[in-house]
């Protein structure tokens, strides 16, 4: 129990929690400002027939005016969360509205829109709303970090369960590269994927590195120094997936909630106000 409490309730600079709130809200805002949920609600009924799960998100097609109003309120709440105006209320309002709006992107066929940009926000904002603004808020940041790490851990578990230990074999990685390189409707970056597919040994290295990285990411929760390596590695991995496979996971950029922003701020301040040389006696 002591180890549990030491982990969750270790002091944390409140600045890091504030930055986490800003990052989560900004990421959700980016998605909200890029989508038109009201028009999704207005598409003909034939598109909606298949989805029997939408009841749990209170999605009732045919009311675009209401969806537009909800989207505007969500945007206002997210802006409030970013700038810090009534941040707790704004986080709760945004979280509940994003729970409703998030599935709209995929709702014609599934209400499980993972990796579409709004998967973490409905839970993370709810947690961030509980921050009290003092050094006791470490547990809030820790749960948000757990949510981010679960992206990798659960993905690793899924690969092991569905495909087995050989998921990252060189030949399988090569097949993935060919798959995405030949999907000409989704080709924006066209050079890296085919190049990788021609170099089997590179595919093998990438496959093994991907599997290893996904299993190792939870270490960041317990060993802070590992973040200096794993955060840049994860960012490089996502840029690599983007340019090699043309796949974008918007939630993945939230890996930067592991950065110690308070230390960054302190260093920047020190640089901005250099200490004067001591006057010789």
């Amino acid at each position, binding site marked *: 129990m002591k180890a549990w409490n030491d982990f*969750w*309730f270790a002091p944390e600079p409140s600045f890091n929690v504030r930055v986490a709130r800003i990052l989560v809200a900004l990421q959700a805002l980016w*998605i909200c*400002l890029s*989508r*038109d949920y009201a*028009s999704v609600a207005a*598409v*003909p009924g*034939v*598109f909606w027939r*298949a989805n029997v799960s939408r*009841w*749990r998100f209170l999605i009732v097609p045919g009311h675009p005016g209401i969806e537009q109003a909800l989207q505007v309120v969500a945007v206002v709440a997210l802006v409030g969360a970013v700038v810090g105006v009534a941040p707790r209320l704004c986080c*709760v309002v945004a979280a509940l509205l994003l*729970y409703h709006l*998030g599935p709209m*992107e995929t709702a*014609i*066929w*599934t*209400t*499980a829109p*993972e990796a579409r940009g709004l*998967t*973490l926000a*409905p*839970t993370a904002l*709810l*947690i961030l*709303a*509980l921050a009290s603004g003092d050094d*006791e808020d470490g*547990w809030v940041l820790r*749960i948000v970090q*757990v*949510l981010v790490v679960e992206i990798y*851990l*659960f*993905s690793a578990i*899924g690969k092991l369960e*569905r*495909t087995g230990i050989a998921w990252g074999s060189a030949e*399988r990685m090569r*097949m*993935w590269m*060919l*798959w995405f390189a*030949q*999907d000409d*409707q*989704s*080709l*924006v*970056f066209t050079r890296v994927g085919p190049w990788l*597919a021609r170099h089997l040994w590179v595919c093998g290295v990438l496959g093994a590195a991907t599997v290893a990285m996904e299993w190792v990411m939870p270490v960041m929760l317990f060993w802070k120094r590992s973040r200096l390596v794993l955060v840049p590695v994860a960012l490089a991995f996502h840029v690599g997936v*983007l340019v090699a496979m043309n*796949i*974008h996971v*918007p939630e993945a950029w939230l890996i930067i909630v592991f950065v110690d922003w308070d230390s960054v701020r302190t260093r920047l301040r020190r640089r901005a106000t250099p200490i004067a040389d001591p006057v010789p006696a």
Partner: protein
Amino acid sequence: MGRLDHGRGREAVLTDLVAAASYAGVVAAAGYAAWTGRSAEIDRRRRGRQVMIGGVLATTLLAGLSQRDLWPLSSWSLMTRAPRRDMGVNPVYLRLVAVDSAGAEYTVDYRAVEPFAIEELMAWMRAQFVSLPRAEQDTAARYLLGRVNAARARVREGRSAGTAGVLPGALRAPFHQLHQRRWRESTDLPATPFVTLRLYGETWDLEERARDSTRVTRQLLYQLQAP
């Protein structure tokens, strides 16, 4: 087969109920943590926080370890399967094509079917459209042809093919899959409206196509001819 479908239906309903209850539980735990968080006693504050921590861990681990998506408590099953060499067989690989009055085909720009993300629309077409009665297919296709022609008109007028969102094109969040902007200039498109919408299924062998990019078999699955 009937028993199997019935079983799947029951499983989906159960998953929905668990998912809804899980998120409701997280919301309730947050409410409790907020309520106890006002207390002057540290033990009481901690009790509420422990409930919140336990609630989030329990529900997210349930999703992740069972690999059942309880969105927004996600299983994060990203690219967990092995790729197949015979592309387009299972699942079917679809291509939506608009045809002008001269018979020329244009692969539809992803922004032309907004507000849908084109990969979600294609997933719906794979799962639902191909097995709909003809009249319902026509209803859906007429709507899509209308969207595609509206996008054509916008591009011909020098505007963007897409309308979703308030951010300028370069700042917009991409969808889960990146897509080419096919319709950029007015010269990319015909001066008169499209008259036909076609849905093709394409199949190929990954190795063969790596050697020869033309090795693709295309089959017409559906066609809507505008009146």
